[in-house]
């Protein structure tokens, strides 16, 4: 009997007819789900409603993609200083050599005072993290890095179909300060990031309909928002262009820059030009004219780094690298002889490749072992949301744990989905959801469980759902709580973005309302495949 489908566009609610009565507690008294949660269609793929689409409805009658936004998670890397086992004049040489190989331009150089100022204009994506623009279209989920230099979207604006061409440009200015400390040098960096976003609207005939230009700025360790809510912050790569070129041995923390008076700076600049140096050390002009937006300059491959020697410096460098990841959780474990093991998850294969490349650039690492999984959005964000509620080592008598009935994680089309759920003693309600790889979340059930699980601590739950497409890696989520997780039943299917925000907020509310009975969360990943017959 095919009572329901998992991983498909339709969920029916005839659960009781499929379940063993003893295993099926009554659902909590929500309105009849078949009425309040009609079988989803493609129009149910609604974003957060913050799209500039004119109607504000959850549907997209024009068939255009609905646009949502996912902000970066985590804080921007903090500013810091590195102690380098070289004298300042040698460090200056290293820094300038490195910058000459990059897309940066030196605009001020004072070797005697130990000051270098560099600027960059071009593609923001290598240096800043602005989260993702998420587009839903005919069941497909697309994620575009919001730091992309260029992107285009079709939007209905005032009943016209417009093409919105979005351009983003980064202008960065970094002050590198080199201070002698004995025979060593303390290297500090401080960067000003200026992001300019231009959105051009073109009509159906290609003519310009309007333009919006917006500028934000922030410094190392800070972030800023465009008025539409796009949050941007450094990913640490800008500063690493300098720091990676040096045999950094330890991080000394944030240091204030020395005050420099105008006469000193001007005199020193004139007194110590680099002989035969082709670099333009003037501050002006930084920008030659009304500059077109777009990928003005591409960063060059990094130069080999000089090996470093102490674990403190390595730890700081690796922390800076991992802090630049989006939607990731990476644990770092240092072993003997400058070995390091990374575990956790990142959100894409590209991030994994970039991470490995960055680690390869860290001088002094003798061995790097990565035990990282790739969990793309929305899985990565859901893992972050439930992390505070997870029991690290759940035991049947102690915490919430979720497993498939026969412990397999591979399901084929038509397979029944049966779960073993080990409940905490204080659980009163159980919520089960199903997260698909197309960016939607399906609702399985919410039920009271206290009396049901009393004395056993575990239940085998026949969900009544069967596996069907879309196929791929998917996630089943279980949450127990002292009160119902949601006040209203969730839609049969909904966009993960909307669901995640509600889940994050509701979990916080429940924990605040009753700190002694915090919700508990568990999950299991499964992989689904089409049947061999099909």
């Amino acid at each position, binding site marked *: 009997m095919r009572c329901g489908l998992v991983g498909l566009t339709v969920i029916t609610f005839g659960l009781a007819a499929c379940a063993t009565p003893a295993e099926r507690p009554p659902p909590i008294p929500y309105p009849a789900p078949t009425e309040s949660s009609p079988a989803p269609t493609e129009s149910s793929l609604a974003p957060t409603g913050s799209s500039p689409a004119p109607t504000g409805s959850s549907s997209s009658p024009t068939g255009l993609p609905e646009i949502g936004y996912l902000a970066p998670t985590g804080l921007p890397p903090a500013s810091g200083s590195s102690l380098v086992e070289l004298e300042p004049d040698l460090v200056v040489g290293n820094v300038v050599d490195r910058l000459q190989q990059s897309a940066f331009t030196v605009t001020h150089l004072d070797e005697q005072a130990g000051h270098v100022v560099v600027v960059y204009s071009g593609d923001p994506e290598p240096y800043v993290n602005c989260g993702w623009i998420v587009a839903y279209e005919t069941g497909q989920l697309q994620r575009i890095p919001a730091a992309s230099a260029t992107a285009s979207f079709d939007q209905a604006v005032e009943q016209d179909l417009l093409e919105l061409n979005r351009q983003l440009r980064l202008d960065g200015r970094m002050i590198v300060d080199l201070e002698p400390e004995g025979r060593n040098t303390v290297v500090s960096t401080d960067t000003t990031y200026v992001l300019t976003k231009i*959105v051009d609207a073109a009509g159906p005939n290609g003519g310009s309909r309007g333009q919006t230009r917006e500028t934000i700025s922030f410094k190392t360790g800070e972030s800023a928002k465009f008025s539409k809510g796009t949050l941007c912050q450094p990913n640490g790569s800008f500063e690493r262009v300098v720091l990676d070129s040096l045999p950094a041995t330890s991080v000394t923390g944030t240091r204030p820059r020395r005050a420099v008076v*105008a006469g000193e700076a001007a005199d020193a600049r004139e007194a110590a030009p680099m002989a035969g140096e082709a670099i333009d050390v003037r501050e002006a002009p930084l920008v030659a004219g009304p500059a077109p937006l777009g990928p003005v300059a591409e960063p060059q491959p990094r130069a080999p780094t000089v090996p470093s020697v102490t674990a403190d410096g390595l730890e700081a460098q690796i922390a800076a690298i991992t802090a630049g990841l989006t939607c990731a959780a990476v644990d770092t474990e240092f072993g003997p002889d400058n070995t390091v093991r990374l575990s956790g998850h990142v959100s894409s294969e590209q991030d994994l490749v970039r991470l490995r490349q960055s680690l390869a650039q860290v001088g002094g690492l003798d061995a790097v072992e990565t035990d990282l999984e790739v969990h793309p959005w929305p899985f990565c964000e859901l893992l972050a949301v439930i992390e505070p509620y997870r029991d690290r080592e759940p035991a049947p008598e102690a915490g919430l744990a979720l497993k498939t009935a026969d412990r397999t994680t591979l399901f084929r089309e038509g397979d029944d989905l049966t779960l073993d759920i080990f409940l905490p003693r204080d659980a009163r309600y159980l919520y089960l959801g199903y997260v698909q790889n197309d960016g939607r979340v399906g609702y399985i059930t919410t039920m009271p469980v206290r009396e049901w699980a009393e004395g056993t601590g575990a239940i085998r739950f026949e969900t009544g759902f069967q596996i069907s497409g879309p196929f791929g890696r998917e996630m089943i989520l279980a949450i127990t709580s002292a009160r119902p997780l949601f006040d209203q039943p969730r839609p049969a299917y909904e966009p993960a973005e909307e669901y995640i925000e509600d889940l994050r907020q509701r979990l916080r509310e429940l924990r605040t309302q009753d700190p002694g009975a915090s919700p508990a969360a568990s999950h299991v990943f499964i992989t689904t495949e089409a049947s061999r017959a099909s």
Partner: protein
Amino acid sequence: MKYLATLYAGLRALMIAALAGSPASAQAPVGTDREAAEWNAARGAGTVEAFQHYLELYPLGRYSGEAFRYIIELTIDPDAAVVGPEAGREWGPSVSTRGLAVDMY
């Protein structure tokens, strides 16, 4: 003309500072006075050249980040009416729209 505007604004800022008994007086710390005056002059002029002049004098100055942003904004849109924040305030987004108001994340 822009040079004259810069010069005028600089002189005006110096005069205002002197009349107000601000740190522009000879007893105040050298450097701080001059930098503040130069910055005020640059802001008063509000031109790319004025801010570049400030950066040439004070490449590591207290207002170098702000000057850099002014230069970028004014270079991309010379007609932009760029107004920075008051001292101690954050500098939020500055928006300009031509034609239809459209936006994207």
